[in-house]
């Protein structure tokens, strides 16, 4: 399974405000004040959330001094989506075995009843 690098990503995602910010950025880049508008939160508080997202590699910020637009970083999101493939394999194979096991114990019960 994947290494520790996912922890920072997940920690960044484990907050409803930050998830809402990412959802907003999915429809295009935005300034800090654009992003702050839907929240009852100060600009410094929003900036702190943006720093967490930036550190986790989930967003990038423009370099213009006054208007530093934020945008999603697809590369940063990729590990989150790769995670799914790994667990999918684990569970599918477990379900195959569960299916066979249930069949086995039921046919055993049935033959026990006949004797």
């Amino acid at each position: 399974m994947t290494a520790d690098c996912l922890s920072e990503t997940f920690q960044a995602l484990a907050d409803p405000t930050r998830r809402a910010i990412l959802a907003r950025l999915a429809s295009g880049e935005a300034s800090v004040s654009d992003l702050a508008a839907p929240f009852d939160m100060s600009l410094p508080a929003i900036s702190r959330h943006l720093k967490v997202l930036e550190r986790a590699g989930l967003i990038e910020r423009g370099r213009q001094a006054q208007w530093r637009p934020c945008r999603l970083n697809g590369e940063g999101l990729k590990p989150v989506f790769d995670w799914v493939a790994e667990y999918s394999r684990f569970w599918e194979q477990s379900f195959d075995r569960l299916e066979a096991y249930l069949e086995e114990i039921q046919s055993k019960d049935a033959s026990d009843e006949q004797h």
Partner: protein
Amino acid sequence: MDSMETTELETPRTALLLTRDLAAPRALVFKAWTQPEHIVRWWGCAETGDVKFTNDLRVGGEFSAVMKLSNGQTHRIFGVYCKIEAPERLVFTWSWDNGEGFKGGETLVTVTLEETATGTKLTLRHESFASEDDCQAHGEGWGASLERLGDFVATL
């Protein structure tokens, strides 16, 4: 054996959703999910060998599955039960470590069992992170707020 199966990835793919129709009564499927002597018979994938499973089946109780992998590593999957509603629902957190210091972030699993004409429909939802809040009120807000992210990643 005549069983149907479907597998799908939800968008956004931050939650994994799997379903399987099982030809067995729901009470038996629930037992297979909750009693260690049954669990060890099916739990794991091709790389996992014998499983040692301990289970404290109560809300707040822990489970632990220790597996020797084919590459020689010992891998442990562990978590805490958040909800136990026999025989239809189990919610538990899911973490892992490989015995060498690598640890995975905590994720959340919801297992739902529904009775069907032919047996039991198993639905498993595995979400890409968990927190104490999720354990108390899991599922709120996470899927909805990220709906568009899946579309975004699909465009890359």
